């Protein structure tokens, strides 16, 4: 697990997972969308509590490797101010076969989104801003608006 304050470079991260025993590579990227929950988004700000985010992210990666027969799995999350179109989070998984590569990649991003101490504040075109609610809380149908970046 890495927390990055600079641009995520998916092609470099991918190359670090190259393995002659790998037949499948699945990657996920979360990009900053220009809209969310009916609002036009200008940019996004990620606050990360790094010591715990790294430890919890590594735990998620270990869980993925224990559950699925993958070769390599990695995740990088940005912090700070991000513009529309920028990559906020990258997950890459290699495995002999695609079943487990897809499953592990999906597991990792799902867990990272709800377990790591990371928060995002959306800055809207109209000038206001707001902290985005947890995806899982939103899915569970509580009163706060459903907001999900990706």
């Amino acid at each position, binding site marked *: 697990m890495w927390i990055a304050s600079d641009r995520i470079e998916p092609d470099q991260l991918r190359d670090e997972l190259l393995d002659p025993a790998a037949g499948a590579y699945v990657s996920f990227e979360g990009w900053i969308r220009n809209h969310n929950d009916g609002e036009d988004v200008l940019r996004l700000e990620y606050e990360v*509590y790094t010591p*715990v985010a790294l430890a919890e992210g590594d735990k998620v990666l270990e869980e993925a490797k224990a559950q699925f027969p993958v070769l390599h799995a990695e995740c990088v999350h940005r912090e700070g101010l991000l513009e529309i179109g920028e990559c906020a989070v990258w997950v890459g998984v290699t495995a002999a076969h695609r079943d487990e590569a897809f499953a592990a990649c999906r597991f990792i991003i799902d867990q990272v989104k709800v377990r790591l101490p990371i928060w*995002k*504040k959306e800055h809207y075109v109209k000038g206001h801003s707001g*902290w985005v*609610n947890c995806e899982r*809380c939103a899915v569970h149908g509580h009163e706060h608006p459903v907001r999900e970046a990706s």
Partner: protein
Amino acid sequence: MNKQITVKYFAGFREHAGLDKETLSADVETAADVFASLKHRHGSAEPLGHCKVAINDEMVDWDTKVNDGDTVLLFPPVAGG
């Protein structure tokens, strides 16, 4: 008996509290007690299950005991990715 606890606030909690950290002396047993006693600071109306807590940089459950000298991190609902 009162315990000396350092509390750190994050994201919306920090903005509501107007500070990122404070030390308090309070008669608290668990992490949940810390959260409840500081409602005026973090201002959260969220169910406790939506928020998370760490003690000394370890994620823990809300019913984990706090000890004198611990640092308790109060995390509002997370939203990575």
